[in-house]
């Protein structure tokens, strides 16, 4: 019965969508400048899964977001970076009907894609020099570089996992061995917990004892030794004679590992088998959560029988596509980013209890700490200073280097701490806290850190110099730079009125306008 419904849902999804589109058109007009009336692309497999579920719940999807919202959203979600005013203008002026798909391709090819993916993955892999992980600075740099490079080269995700699970060698020279060093403990249980969380999206404490023991057994022969080089450490397979190792795999099946075989390889072989659904599901669910604000299984790293997916069909669609494309992460992004589901407005068609968990609109979220400080630096110029609890050379960050490229979770700044950057202690995705606090609000409204950035901004000075005689042009340039869109007529009127007075606008008034735009919800949130 359920299967039949699902099949029927697939067949009629497009018709439903068209019908819903018509119904939406009958309601009030799209909210400008954030929405547009019509879709410009067809629904894809993701949309069919989402819409059939929405229909079953008698929910409507949101309208399409506007082009201006889309470019800002894609940049922030994929690159962790604001588009420049020129990039926005080029995109808005582009008349090609498939320009959103072209933008997605262009964005996925940019180096910031790898930077931001590495940042997110290094949170999960706990890449930091100091307590409680203690990778130490050189290993952090090597490990981060390897991870970033994997995303830059679009290393298939199964190979990525295999390298992390099975590598042996020096922490400086074979960077993926740091996977087994970046954990709070050196015992098999600590390694098993890290493997379950990282690759199966599961908290091992929710597992039955024998499966936990089985995973620990497969990781029991990992050993560590130091060398004459300071802080170098070799991760290797313990050569101590061992009998055949019998263990229960996480799926409940039993394996017998001969003494001359690295049990980690047996584990990796099982993990990345295409018919192992958990591995791909955990990965696609993370990517989905990064792009759409919450996992289909939520929390995104808490897979267990009593925490079901809000839309199992959707998870299956993503998993199949991911396996079919050879674990191609860029292709997975492309599929999601080109979906109507991703391109919905942040405005639910109708407020209802389950709109968020069934993805009936794009979710509003505060920018990550790193993305926010990078945005401020990009918009106003200037850098940021960092410290680390241990003396390390990597805290001297050249002005212009982005915060999203920082390798080391131990390198920090008061801003990053204030805005909830994850400590990278546990690898849990919930470590990142993007919930606004009063202290953060006060910092943005009234701190000297933000105020001096605005007052000292050479970019603002240049903008003002370029538009001395043209208030509307100045306002438009500020809007494009800060909010990635031209102002509405009401905004233009309010802003030019603020800059009114004889002669050119005063720098203080321009500072106030920039301050106001930085403090809008539109600047601070993905939307």
């Amino acid at each position, binding site marked *: 019965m359920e299967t039949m419904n699902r099949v029927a849902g697939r067949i009629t999804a497009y018709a439903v969508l068209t019908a819903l589109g018509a119904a939406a058109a009958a309601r009030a007009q799209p909210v400008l400048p954030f929405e547009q009336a019509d879709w410009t692309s067809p629904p894809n497999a993701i949309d069919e899964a989402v819409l059939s579920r929405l229909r079953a719940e008698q929910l409507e999807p949101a309208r399409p977001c506007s082009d201006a919202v889309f470019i800002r959203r894609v940049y922030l979600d994929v690159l962790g970076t604001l588009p420049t005013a020129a990039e926005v203008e080029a995109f808005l002026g582009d008349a090609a009907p498939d320009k959103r798909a072209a933008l997605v391709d262009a964005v996925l090819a940019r180096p910031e894609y790898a930077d931001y993916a590495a940042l997110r993955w290094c949170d999960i892999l706990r890449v930091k020099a100091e307590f*409680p992980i203690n990778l130490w600075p050189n290993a952090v740099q090597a490990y981060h570089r390897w991870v970033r490079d994997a995303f830059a080269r679009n290393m298939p995700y199964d190979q990525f996992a295999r390298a992390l699970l099975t590598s042996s060698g020096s922490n400086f020279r074979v960077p993926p061995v740091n996977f087994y060093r970046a954990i709070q403990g050196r015992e098999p249980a600590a390694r098993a917990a890290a493997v379950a969380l990282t690759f199966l999206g599961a908290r091992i404490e929710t597992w039955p004892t024998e499966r936990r023991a089985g995973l620990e057994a497969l990781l029991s022969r990992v050993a560590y030794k130091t060398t004459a080089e300071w802080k170098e450490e070799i991760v290797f397979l313990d050569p101590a004679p061992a009998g055949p190792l019998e263990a229960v795999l996480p799926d409940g099946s039993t394996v017998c590992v001969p003494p001359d075989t690295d049990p980690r390889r047996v584990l990796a072989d099982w993990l990345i088998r295409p018919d192992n659904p958990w591995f791909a599901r955990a990965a696609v669910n993370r990517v989905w959560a990064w792009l759409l604000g919450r996992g289909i299984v939520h929390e995104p790293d808490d897979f267990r029988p009593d925490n079901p997916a809000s839309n199992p069909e959707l998870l299956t669609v993503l998993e199949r596509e991911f396996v079919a494309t050879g674990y191609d992460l860029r292709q997975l992004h492309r599929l999601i980013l080109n979906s109507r589901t991703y391109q919905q407005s942040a*405005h639910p068609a109708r407020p209802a209890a389950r709109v968020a968990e069934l993805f009936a609109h794009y979710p509003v979220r505060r920018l990550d700490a790193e993305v926010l400080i990078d945005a401020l630096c990009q918009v106003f110029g200037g850098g940021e200073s960092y410290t680390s609890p241990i003396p390390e050379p990597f805290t001297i960050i050249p002005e212009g280097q982005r915060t999203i490229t920082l390798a080391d979770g131990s390198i920090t700044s008061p801003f990053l*701490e204030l805005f909830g950057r994850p400590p990278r202690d546990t690898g849990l995705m919930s470590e990142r806290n993007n919930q606004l606090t*009063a202290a953060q*609000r006060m910092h943005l409204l*009234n701190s*000297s850190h933000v105020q001096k950035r605005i007052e000292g901004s050479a970019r603002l000075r240049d903008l003002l110099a370029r538009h001395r005689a043209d208030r509307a042009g100045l306002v438009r340039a500020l809007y494009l730079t800060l909010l990635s869109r031209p102002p509405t007529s009401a905004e233009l009127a309010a802003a030019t009125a603020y800059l009114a007075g004889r002669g050119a606008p005063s720098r203080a008034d321009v500072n106030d306008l920039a301050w106001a735009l930085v403090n809008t919800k539109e600047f601070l*949130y993905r939307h």
Partner: protein
Amino acid sequence: MQTPHEQRLTRREVLQRGLAGAAGVALLGPRGLWAQDAPPATPTPRATAVIQVWLWGGACHLDTFDPKPDAGADYCGPLASPVASNVDGIRIGELLPQLARQADKYSLIRSLTHGINAHETAAYLVQTGRQTDRLVFPSAGAVVSALRGYDHGYRGPVPPYIVLTQPQGRFSEAGFLGPRYKPFATGGDPNQARFAVEGLVQPGLTDERQQRRRALLRALDTLGAALADEPQFEHFAACERQADELIYGAARRIFDLSSEPAELRDRYGRNTFGQCCLVARRLVEAGVPYVTINSPGWDTHKQHFQAMRRKLPELDQGLATLLADLADRGLLERTIVWCCGEFGRTPRVQWEPPWNGGRGHFGACFSALVAGGGFKGGHVVGASDARGERVAQRPVYPRDLLGSIYTLLGIDPQQRLPNARGLDVPILPSPEDGPKGGGLLREIMDA
């Protein structure tokens, strides 16, 4: 409440333990050493607030609270005439005459010791009671913030742990407790016409402009208007209301010294330190449980005596007025004031080049002032030798001082620190590990 082991430690046993060392303790077993004594009465907790006056860089004990006029010019330099206080037998440095008239309100510890001569590790030890290790522990202010702050019913208009005006950095902050318990460092200068508290008052921004740009912000909040039902934005509004309460509400009034009588402001001293003392009193009055005044400039390797002639009168005026003002308002009974730096300074003046009359770092023996909140006034704890170079009687270690402060606040020093990492660690090290201790300052704690 579990009685801390260290409270049962007698002086004889401390000496024994010190002599026997770790091996001796292991032989006796961790509990055997203290088990025989009947536990003395626990001092009554009566303090609800702490003002920490931090002489950042390390002030010289000989020039302040432990003068040694008989040690000669090589030790005293030009400051060889200590002044008598209003308590028989207690003399203090000649540049502290006002404090001398308040000696009945405070006690002096002349036998503080930890032996560390490096700023960071010494500052960490004196403010956490712990030696540096992998784990960074919270300073006393962060501990009090965690145990007397927002998590425990504090609803004051300003954060529960305030630093005036500049923070000392990592080794005097929240440690592993996390950013929630970090101090709110005001920045700015309360001796300016307008105390530009960080985040509260923007220097160079008039109230009129502030209001104007806020109105502009409201006019430009297009997304907020479009998504009026968005739960994230309702939360945003709540955060903004809280922030505004700080910016425009009671918090701002607390930091605004213009409502204080000019005569009182004069008494505190028209300088940054003096006005910080006044702000500290206002904060305590408003219910803030922990205030640290960081007084910089005590690291006087060169031109030491010139610096003392400048700094000590300010310290004297500010601290003496603070004690008197707190007492006048009935606040001293519930407010602990403690004043020291991370260490003392070399008793023997370094006349030779390149110092030419300076004093170096000295962790072997130094002094502290404690007052209020259950600390008795008019006493001296411990003694240094004739030249202030070694502890002669009753060594007091940083953990003893901090443990006494916690005890008077009703905080068990062996209480486990709340933390998200699942660490099972007491506020101060247990007697079995960590730096050694000399026992709580029972001799000056009201029963």
